[in-house]
């Protein structure tokens, strides 16, 4: 068991290195850099020193080095000094931006995972038990709809509904009057209200998939001999389902953490942009458009690393639940 965990942990290192290379390449793909526009502007204004000014700027941010050495400097600083560079756009350290924005992203993602499970597991099991009933058909329909509706469209529609019908304040993480205020009950409730729509939106697409997987899994298990045996021995149906079938059906649920996490982070990014949430989504989009490469590079790297760690956790949990995994 421990050998398996250690092996998976060691496998993490080359994966993160590979991802850092991919992240770097992706960020370096667009021609020019963040100063290219500025140089053009200076030239258009007839500034004779345009090239020198911009060159000096590049030197400050270490952007005039050759590409390969830039990668090693970037990675070196991250590994040894935990320094992700400086955002040219906002003139702040990337580490500071991350410290400010990442917790909210993680909060929304974590809440979405919990929400996904709390809703999907009972619904998935119940619609398998009540196969081909109105309940089954309607949840299947909603699940299909959930997979078909784009995140941002769902966010827009729910915002419209919450704003016009329920009269909620929308957009952002809290209402204007609470920004900068110390934590209080009122502020907490206000934040909770602002989180409802993002969590529903982010959870919706993976929830739909999970309901389908779970329903199929439970249906498969219900035809098996151990279920027949349990029933033949007069075990109540409740125990058969919640004790015997659920144990097996949970395996795919755990293994989905691996693929749910990237989906949730994807969904969170775009939802945050639409709903103006103070998470990494907005910063990421802006840094990409302005070629603020230290910020966008760091974000791709961190989001991907989080995803890998997530799938690692899911693999280990899977090994704990289902011992066969370790030996195959």
């Amino acid at each position, binding site marked *: 068991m421990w050998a398996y965990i250690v092996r998976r942990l060691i496998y993490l290192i080359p*994966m993160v290195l*590979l*991802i850092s290379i*991919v*992240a770097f390449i*992706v*960020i370096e*793909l*667009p*021609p020019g850099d963040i100063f290219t526009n500025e140089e053009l502007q200076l030239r258009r204004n007839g500034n004779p020193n345009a090239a020198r000014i911009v060159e000096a700027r590049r030197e400050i941010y270490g952007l005039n080095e050759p590409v390969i050495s830039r990668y090693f400097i970037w990675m070196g600083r991250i590994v040894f000094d935990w320094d992700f560079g400086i955002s040219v756009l906002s003139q702040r350290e990337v580490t500071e931006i991350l410290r400010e924005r990442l917790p909210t992203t993680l909060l929304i993602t974590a809440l979405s995972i919990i929400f996904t499970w709390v809703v999907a597991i009972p619904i998935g099991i119940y619609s398998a038990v009540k196969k081909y009933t109105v309940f089954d058909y309607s949840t299947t329909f909603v699940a*299909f*709809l959930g*997979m*078909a*509706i*784009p*995140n*941002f*469209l769902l966010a*827009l*529609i729910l*915002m*419209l509904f919450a*704003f*016009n019908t329920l009269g909620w304040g*929308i*957009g952002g993480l809290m209402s204007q009057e609470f920004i900068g205020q110390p934590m209080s009950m009122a502020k907490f409730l206000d934040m909770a209200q602002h989180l409802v729509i993002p969590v529903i939106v982010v959870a919706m697409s993976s929830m739909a998939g999970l309901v389908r997987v779970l329903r199929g899994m439970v249906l498969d298990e219900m035809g098996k001999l151990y279920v027949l045996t349990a029933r033949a021995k007069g075990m109540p149906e409740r125990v058969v389902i919640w004790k015997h079938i659920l144990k097996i059906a949970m395996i795919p649920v755990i293994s989905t953490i691996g*693929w749910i996490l*990237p*989906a949730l*982070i*994807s*969904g969170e*990014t*775009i939802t945050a*942009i*639409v709903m103006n949430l103070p998470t990494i989504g907005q910063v*990421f*989009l802006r840094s*990409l*458009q302005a070629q603020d490469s230290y910020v*966008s590079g760091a*974000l*791709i790297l961190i*989001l*991907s690393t989080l*995803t*890998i760690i997530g*799938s690692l956790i899911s693999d280990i949990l899977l090994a704990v639940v289902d011992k066969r995994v370790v030996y195959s």
Partner: protein
Amino acid sequence: MGAALSSLEESTTPPGVHPHLEARRETQWYLFRQKFRTHKLARVSLWVLLFLVVTCVLFPEFFSPYSPQRVFDNQNLPPSRVRFFDADGRFSFVPFVYAFTQELDRETFQRITVVDTEDKRSIRIFVLGDSYRMLGFIPGRLRLFGVEGDQGVFLFGTDKLGRDLFSRTLHATRISMTIGLVGVLLSTLLGLLLGGVSGLQGGWVDGLIQRAIDVILSIPTIPLWMALAASIPRNWSPLGIYFMITIIISLIGWTGLARTVRGKFLSLRKEDFVLAAVGFNAPMLSIITRHLIPNFLSYVLVSLTLSVPAMILGETALSFLGIGLQPPVVSLGVLIQQAQNIQDITLYPWLLIPGGFVVIIVLLYNFIGDGLRDAADPYS
């Protein structure tokens, strides 16, 4: 389908079986079609999808009343009400709309539309309208319907520049659907090729491709797409951007297919009929194309159908964020981009109609994919 399979079926038919049954020996393709036909939802979806392909992908110029770029004087106009009964309750066999004027409400400072119930404008079919080039080369002016007079008929209303949203939605559906299809073609080629090589070659090539898939899958899709799409220079031609977006979106889709294909190759190459073919010294290429590929073609078909929605959703998301297709081109994402803030949607809710098209198209593909999956699996 597949010489190997049909001969297998033959050999498994027990001797002395009922002659009537024996006469109806069916090919795998026939069974596949029969089974698909019993899946009602999938069959209906297929017809609706075909309808969309004809009206939106092939001939949107004919089915839409105006050119998608034509600008009318009436901005942000709500959808026109097509009527059969006039204000006095009289029935008219030919549908009509009322002429209207737009006035400014002095209290709310919003434009309101006032219809003139005296002035009926009949809707005519097969009218001559804005000129177009169908499929890019057939010039024409004939349009399915139009309205008399100088004002237009706007089934979905108009946008903030006064362009007919219905015509724009039909043209946008063409772009969004073809992006999905071209993207799927690309990712199929990549998936078949790399998955096949991975499964057949094994060794370090297999390891390399598998690690590459691991890496790609561990980068969250939307951020990766965003990064790649943002790297397309803004001054490229619309066509160039279109193809780059397609390539970017299909970069990720191939991984799932490659895994399936690899798994199939690994399990199939130990099968008796493959070993027999190898024993007969059949050339590798013919083993792959004649014995291996026919055996998992149905899986490929299913995986293809199910990966189209992801691509359409991807294009929509990127265009919505402003880093996908750019405005002179109309895609469904570009259209929804106009409905970005809550004020606009509250005032002009019809701007969300293109979003409904996205949902419907994705649903159709999912239903068809479900039907195909059931049909492809002979054991269910």
